[in-house]
């Protein structure tokens, strides 16, 4: 399962449809459409992303809704719980040192997304990012700006910030996503993993950044919204097989994503078979 948790939502449906179809073709399974709030949060927080989407999407693909909020002043932060009702994932984009500290330590968000094309005055520090990672808040690296801009400094900043984040976070809790404003900025999962390994993260960690870590963001966010205090959740555990099921497809769809799908039960051991046979025979004798 590959995740791309940042595709900006636009009103240009044709472009978006093309992007989503291309992501599916490249092998991504879950895509989050992002709506960005600039400045103060408006009174009406409902997501502009319609559900279902105005164009047909590939059936294999799961679409999530995500919002980006810019952290500029402390005033808007108390409305984050209201945002949670309207979006599947909430990401924060800190603009300075103080808001980054706040986002890492206390805010109730799912992702920290930094604008890597900027130059940060201070180095990132492990204690700060470490608290975020320990809380389950992951840090996102968006690779698309580095691909499409002709601006050499933006490219350089992106690489330097990415390598720095990889060094400081010690490779833990990082997520790769595209933030692709057009189709051309999307790359296949393997290409992204290779890019990560060139930046010094290594193949395994790079793969985790597209699969395991991203999944944990999605699932934590879901648990926060649907479970009892984020601790207890009722999951669909299957049902007893009814002998004459006609239509298997009508079963309710599962919530969440399974870690692995278990196959059939174990085959019966020879000893058990013998035992069963004997029991049957005994039962026959008794009835006779």
């Amino acid at each position, binding site marked *: 399962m590959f995740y791309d948790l940042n595709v900006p939502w636009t009103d240009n449906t044709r472009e978006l449809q*093309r992007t989503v179809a291309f992501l599916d073709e490249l092998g991504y399974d879950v895509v989050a459409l992002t709506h960005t709030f600039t400045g103060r949060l408006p009174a009406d927080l409902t997501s502009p992303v319609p559900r279902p989407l105005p164009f047909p999407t590939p059936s294999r693909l799961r679409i999530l809704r995500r919002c980006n909020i810019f952290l500029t002043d402390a005033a808007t932060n108390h409305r984050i719980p209201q945002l949670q009702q309207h979006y599947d994932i909430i990401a924060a984009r800190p603009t300075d040192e103080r808001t980054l500290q706040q986002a890492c330590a206390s805010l109730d968000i799912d992702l920290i997304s930094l604008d890597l094309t900027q130059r940060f005055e201070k180095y990132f520090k492990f204690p700060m990012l470490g608290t975020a990672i320990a809380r389950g808040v992951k840090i996102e690296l968006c690779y698309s700006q580095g691909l499409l801009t002709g601006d050499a400094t933006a490219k350089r900043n992106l690489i330097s910030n990415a390598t720095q984040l990889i060094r400081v976070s010690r490779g833990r809790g990082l997520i790769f996503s595209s933030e692709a404003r057009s*189709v*051309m900025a999307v790359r*296949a*999962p*393997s*290409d992204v993993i290779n*890019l990560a390994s060139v930046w010094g993260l290594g193949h395994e960690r790079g793969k985790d950044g597209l699969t395991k870590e991203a999944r944990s963001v999605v699932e934590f966010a879901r648990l926060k919204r649907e479970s009892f205090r984020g601790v207890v959740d009722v999951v669909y555990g299957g049902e007893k097989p009814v002998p004459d099921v006609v239509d298997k497809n009508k079963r309710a769809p599962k919530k969440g994503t399974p870690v692995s799908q278990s196959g059939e039960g174990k085959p019966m051991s020879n000893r058990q078979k013998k035992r069963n046979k004997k029991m049957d025979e005994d039962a026959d004798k008794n009835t006779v």
Partner: protein
Amino acid sequence: MVRVKNRYLVVNFLYPSTTPPSTSTSSFKDLPSLLQLHQPTPDTFHAGLLLRAIRDGVTELFGDYGMGMVSSSLKVNYHSPATSTSIIRCPQAHYQMVWAALTYMTALPRPIGTPVVVKVVRVSGTIKMAELEVIRRAKDIILRAKMEQRGGGGGIKGMGAGMGMVGHIMKTVEKRREEVLVRVEEAEEESESE
């Protein structure tokens, strides 16, 4: 025996944006999206241009150091504009640089300028395996295009075919899932011919 070790990258050129090629026709819009994505590369983009594009990319990303490391055995072994596929040879120790340069490519070089997404499909230690992969891919894509067309034509007929059809589709989907990640061969395969 000690020999120079190489990696062979099998590369696909994808065209996700709909800017039609130079011979724009009205029938272009009717093509299935799969074929639109895998449309043929312009013939003017020959192996020499590809090589120069890679060189430029490596120089831009890694500078003279990268270029020096890579250039010792950089070569385009196979280039087919019809299927938009290439096999690129590069040194084993530094194949990631070439791969990154390909990832950073956004358009075909100057005189053509079509937007392109380059996707590395397979990293192989021997050219034989790379060739086999190219053949397998080509067959696969034809099959998928045919299936898509059939699916668009008669949906109800497909439903009636029952479990056999569904099973087949499930199998294809599973197979696709395996293929998302590029196989990188770590173990060197022995080949006497090189």
